[in-house]
């Protein structure tokens, strides 16, 4: 299996997914070598049949959006270098190759040819999602399209993403299986009067809608604390925005949090909001719900199609978002019920289920 991030280092849901998936696959007696770029934080496995293989020394931050030409050159070059290295290093007796998202696709395609084994591709997001459907970069799209075409089977994280793969990349729907994500439940804690945004501060995740809803809520409930956790290219403009809205004393920007801080903030928040413009799945929603925190997600998010006990809004509908936040803060029975039912439903979203569905896909190609 080839990925690009794995705990303790991770920037997004892909790392979380690879961690949960590989461990449950290993528990289901699948032998896995997991290849990833070498980072400062050493990833390791405590399972006999799961080996983490860190390759080379690359400086790719996969969610970067290289805007200027010079940076672009470096960026693309290091991506190619990582893929070349992988193709070079991967030797041995594998039954199939499983890749995740665009960064590893080139290697997947070439290894399929080199080793003559089937190639399964998981799609956690597409260039359309990451660009928020504004000016998607053709370079990424071309790589993604080629990978999807060459893959024997594709695993999409939602029906939403499956539709994008079919409609925007012209892929045969019959070779795409949908496997929704999972979570290791965090468990709940006493709630404080906090409304939380947690994610990369990029256009895709819709953080500015969070701030505009915060303004509306604060006009109604002045003593609510809003937290924007995470970092990204929009951080400076969001801080300006909070000042413009006159709510900078009620909004805290935490920057990047450690894993323990993330868990803590999920547990003590009263409301979690994921107002993504385009969200293939949204594992953070499952994490928040598993911490007993009522969650509001974009109607189009992948998690919204799979999960019942959460609230759903159009990401642009600030009034409705504020209505739901206030209702959760104001009506205790609502907060209690959605928290309780959410934690019950979350038990269905296990990595074991993800592994079993993934194994089904493997069986279809070997």
């Amino acid at each position, binding site marked *: 299996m080839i990925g690009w991030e794995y705990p303790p280092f991770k920037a997004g849901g892909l790392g979380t997914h690879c961690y949960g998936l590989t461990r449950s696959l290993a528990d289901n007696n699948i032998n896995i070598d997991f290849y990833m770029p070498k980072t400062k934080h050493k990833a390791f496995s405590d399972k006999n049949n799961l080996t983490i293989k860190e390759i080379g020394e690359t400086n790719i931050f996969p969610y970067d959006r290289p805007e200027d030409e010079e940076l672009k050159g470096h960026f693309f070059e290091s991506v190619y270098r990582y893929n070349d290295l992988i193709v070079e290093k991967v030797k041995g007796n594998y039954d199939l190759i499983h890749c995740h998202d665009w960064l590893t696709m080139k290697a997947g395609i070439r290894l399929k040819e080199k080793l003559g084994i089937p190639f399964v591709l998981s799609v956690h997001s597409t260039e359309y999602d990451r660009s928020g459907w504004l000016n998607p970069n053709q370079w990424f799209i071309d790589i993604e399209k080629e990978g999807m075409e060459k893959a024997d089977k594709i695993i999409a994280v939602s029906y939403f993403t499956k539709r994008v793969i079919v409609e925007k990349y012209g892929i045969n729907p019959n070779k795409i299986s949908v496997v929704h994500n999972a979570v290791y439940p965090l468990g709940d804690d006493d709630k404080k009067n906090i409304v939380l945004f947690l994610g990369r501060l990029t256009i895709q995740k819709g953080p500015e809608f969070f701030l505009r809803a915060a303004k509306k809520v604060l006009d109604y409930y002045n003593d609510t604390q809003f937290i924007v956790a995470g970092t990204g290219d929009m951080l400076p403009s969001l801080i300006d925005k909070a000042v413009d809205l006159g709510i900078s004393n009620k909004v805290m920007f935490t920057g990047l949090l450690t894993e323990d801080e993330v868990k803590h903030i999920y547990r003590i928040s009263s409301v979690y909001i994921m107002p993504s413009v385009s969200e293939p799945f949204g594992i953070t929603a499952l994490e928040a719900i598993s911490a007993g925190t009522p969650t509001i997600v974009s109607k189009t998010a992948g998690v919204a199609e799979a999960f019942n*006990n959460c609230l*759903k809004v159009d990401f642009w509908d600030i009034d409705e978002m*504020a209505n739901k936040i*206030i*209702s959760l803060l104001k*009506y205790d*029975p609502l907060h209690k*019920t*959605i928290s309780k039912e959410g934690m019950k439903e979350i038990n269905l979203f296990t990595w074991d289920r993800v592994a079993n569905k993934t194994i089904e896909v493997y069986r279809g190609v070997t």
Partner: protein
Amino acid sequence: MTSVCLYFEVHQPFRLNRFSVFDIGNYQNQSQNYFNNKLNKEIFEKVVRKCYLPTNKLLLDLINKHDGKFRISFSITGTFVEYCEEYMPSVIESFRDLYKTGSVDFIEETYYHSLSSLYDELDEFEEQIKMHQNMMQRVFNYKPKIFRNTEAIYDNRIARKIEDMGFKGIITEGTEKILHWRSPNYLYKSINSDLRVLLRNYNLSDDIGFRFSSHNWNGFPLTADKYANWISNTEGNLINLFMDYETFGEHQWTETGIFDFLEHLPDNILNYNHLDFVTVSEAVERYNPIGDVDVPWAISWADEDRNVSTWLGNDMQIACFNELKNIGNKIKKTGDQNLIETWRRLQTSDHLYYVSTKGLKDGAVHAYFSHYDSPYDGFINYMNILQDLKTKI
């Protein structure tokens, strides 16, 4: 002789507008803003077209054809009659035509299809029954003898009250919870009064209401011939088939063959010499009770649980129910008829039904009948409106 007692429940709620927390305390004329007249009219007209008018016509033809041998009963809520009078009086006319045949009986219930029977005091319950009696008198010039509470909710306290109000019989669910080993296919009486109790045979009723078009049911496809045969082989002297009237053409679409089934049902049943049809009043007159039913905790005909958890099954529902119940006295004291009417329209049980968070099986049924995305949206909307109503007192 075994009698088949067919009764149809006819009801439409006044569904609510989207009402945000920001709307609380912001409007003057509440009834205009609480109720979604456009959606309500649309749904009503759709169901009239698909169910009420075609089914009424079919039943009228069947009654005429069988010369008084095909007999049925209806219970019609006050809110439904308001819909008819507002949007389509001809629907009322078609019910009158049915009534004039002499083969149709009417049943009493609360005007607003409410849960007022579960309040601490039963005065509001009584008032809503009297409102319904007045409506029946006005529209059909008839005084029903049999009572059906909202979704057949029943307990000993309700039975006592209903007997005190002069009714001869009451309808509820033939559930094992109260029958244990006994059969629902007989007349019973309440343990603490002389009130007769008609028990729904839920297997045979749900064969039509729920399973009729279900392909993975081993009774599928259900023909009138097959169904009559089942009934002819059922022991007992009174088989109560109670269901929502909207079963015909709305829950079960025309394409399922539900109208063909209904058309051939009377013939097929009357082909058996030991079977006939009775109305609810006739059932109570003709048969003697064979035992008592003792129901200390409320039962109903709703969901798999057959209790009141459909409306009071989670904290959100209980909060709304209490909120509504507790402002009753204050609302009545204002003497403001508009306000009281609005409060009562909000008591229609459907509003709480939409807030139910029950599991998959019932949940699917709940979702089918709800215009909200989720029970949580149902709660937010309903609770916001209740908060707004409080600002008006």
